[in-house]
């Protein structure tokens, strides 16, 4: 077995935390049960790793086997990468061919290899007709760099693909390979980016409003209102309660009852003229718009936005610029005056 492959396997296994090691190795399915049983997983990590690498060497692991292990590690640690979304489209009037996974894989691999000569492409199919593709890029003259691969998750029944964004030079080539292999005509990058692949899927496939939790009915609304009564004078409450209920209702209509998909940021590039209600003369003569870049960031952005109106920090209904994020499937916006 090649030195570089051994080193690559060693580094990949070292990244895996000890509590996940057995699960991942079983998913990899390269070493047999008997071989795994010979290892004492209670030793120090370096000894375990050495033993594993030795077993892999005995079994003559290849680059492709190592790449498969890397894919499985990434599947367990999806949130360590930031994912972009691409949408492909066919020409209007084109026939819808039946998707053939084998043909897709061959075609994809061939296109990349023809262009670059040195490239490692590995595939792993998962449920929901998804295929995970790992590409390690090289050039005509250099071997592929296994430590900076790109991952693509393509859902074959849909025109969407998710890529871990680390592409500069090879982005057009990847786009071309995907489009041609999946028999589409063109590919476009969507303005949507996040660490959470599941949330991106939910937004792109519009699945987020299908998760109904049975206990999440109207009773929480009443419970929340009851909480107000306890500490306050009952006469004061009545004036506010109408307003609070209105706000709650609008928020619920806008955001729904279901848990929101998880995004970390939304970015708005504004180029709009300044119009103030306070004092009409400020910047009245200025023709140019104000150039602003506004970024919202949060561990769970949509939940945070949902809580703004009930907290009184925002008006209800919230601005459509914010509420349209899941609907429009974007979190990068450019806003101009009409």
């Amino acid at each position, binding site marked *: 077995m090649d030195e570089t492959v051994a080193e690559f396997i060693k580094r990949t296994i070292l990244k895996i935390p000890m509590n996940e090691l057995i699960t991942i190795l079983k998913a990899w399915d390269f070493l047999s049960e008997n071989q795994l049983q010979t290892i004492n997983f209670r030793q120090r990590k370096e000894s375990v790793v050495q033993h594993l690498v030795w077993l892999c060497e005995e079994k003559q692991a290849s680059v492709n086997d190592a790449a498969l292990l890397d894919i499985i590690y990434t599947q367990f640690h999806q949130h360590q990468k930031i994912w972009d979304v691409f949408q492909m489209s066919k020409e209007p009037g084109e026939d819808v061919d039946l998707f053939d996974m084998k043909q897709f894989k061959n075609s994809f691999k061939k296109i990349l290899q023809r262009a670059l000569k040195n490239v490692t492409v590995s595939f792993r199919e998962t449920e929901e007709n998804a295929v995970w593709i790992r590409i390690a890029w090289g050039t005509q003259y250099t071997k592929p760099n296994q430590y900076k691969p790109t991952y693509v998750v393509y859902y074959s029944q849909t025109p969407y693909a998710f890529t871990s964004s680390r592409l500069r030079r090879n982005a057009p080539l990847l786009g071309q390979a995907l489009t041609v292999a999946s028999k589409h005509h063109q590919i476009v990058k969507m303005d949507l980016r996040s660490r959470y692949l599941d949330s991106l899927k939910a937004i792109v496939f519009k699945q987020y409003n299908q998760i109904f939790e049975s206990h999440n009915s109207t009773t929480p609304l009443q419970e929340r209102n009851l909480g107000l009564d306890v500490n306050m004078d009952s006469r004061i409450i009545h004036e506010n309660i109408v307003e609070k209920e209105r706000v709650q209702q609008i928020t619920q209509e806008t955001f729904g009852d279901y848990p929101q998909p998880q995004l970390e940021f939304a970015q*708005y590039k*504004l180029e*709009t003229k*300044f*119009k*103030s*209600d*306070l*004092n009409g*003369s*400020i*910047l009245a003569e*200025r023709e*140019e718009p*104000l*150039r*602003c*870049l*506004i*970024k*919202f*960031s*949060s*561990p*769970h*952005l949509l*939940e*945070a*936005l949902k*809580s*703004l109106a009930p*907290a*009184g*920090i*925002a*008006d209800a*209904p*919230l*601005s459509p*610029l*914010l509420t349209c994020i899941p609907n429009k499937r974007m979190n990068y916006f450019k*806003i101009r005056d009409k």
Partner: protein
Amino acid sequence: MDSYDASESTPRQSTSSRPEDYFIGATFLQKRLESVRKQTSFVPTPPRRKIPHCSLLQEDVDLQKVAFLLHKQWTLYSLTPLYKFSYSNLKEYSRLLNAFIVAEKQKGLAVEVGEDFNIKVIFSTLLGIKGTQRDPEAFLVQGLTLLPKLECSGTILVYCNLLGSSDPSTLAFQVAGTTGACHYSWILSKSQLPSENRESKVLWTGWFCCIFGDSLLETVSEDFTCLPLFLANGTESNTAIIGTWFQKTFDCYFSPLAINAFNLSWMAAMWTACKMDHYVATTEFLWSVPCSPQSLDISYAIHPEDAKALWDSVHKTPGEVTQEEVDLFMDCLYSHFHRHFKIHLSATRLVRVSTSVASAHTDGKIKILCHKYLIGVLAYLTELAIFQIE
């Protein structure tokens, strides 16, 4: 349109005129006494301030020397006046502080092996960082570490930290790869002779200054030196050790200086008002929204020319910034944001303000980017420090 052009031609006159010409009409102490007598509420900040002039830096300061103060993040502290501090004893202070640091580090605090870099401290004065002639001279304390040279020969790796002192008990050795006891003696190879021109790396910097500190200077006696603003860059542990020595030696007291949102908005307005030839950074504000359970941060970056245009349209009084103008400026930004997002930024907490002149964080961290307005920025910070002391 710009009123600064007229005043720029007379900067020298304005620096040497009486203290009363400046923005603090009466000292804080006097104001507070007055308000107590009249039983009115005390407004802690003056309603108007002068926009910093760009050429207030005195001519004898070397731009090269102050260049290292820029583009670094400083943590702010306010410092009560130092008792019996003398500028002629700086070398003596260096020696004492070095000894103190060595003693502290040998007290056995948990330090990782290999990270025991000994710091050599140097005191020096910073000429020209002052507002008026009455202000005391600023001085600088730098902690340097002498980089050790590694000698690799076969299996023996000798690692040595030299302080430049000849006392063998202060030398620490680690000899790896050989058996036998490690004892305190020195093994010098040719390339490890302790020479004066060894490369030294600055590990910690702290400087003390006072800009327009007249209100404080008037209230203290001759024995005290007033340098209310202290800026530090380096690890917390070093700052704590050096701070402890100052507190013991000069009977003073450090306290971290936090900048609240009100002052941050003043800083934003004043720095936007400064005239700049070219902008090196966008004007950016960062708000933290107090919503639960998730935290939300909103960053609002506006092109510096647009920010300046907005400010010029708001600004009415030449040469000065008033409270109304600051409020109006911030309100314009809030209303522009509200028009798009329906979120009331006034209900959130302003955490950070960043312009081409400087950037400030509410935790008391500041980074100065423009040497022209260095004195202006420090003047405001000195005012905040003095207010905290009193």
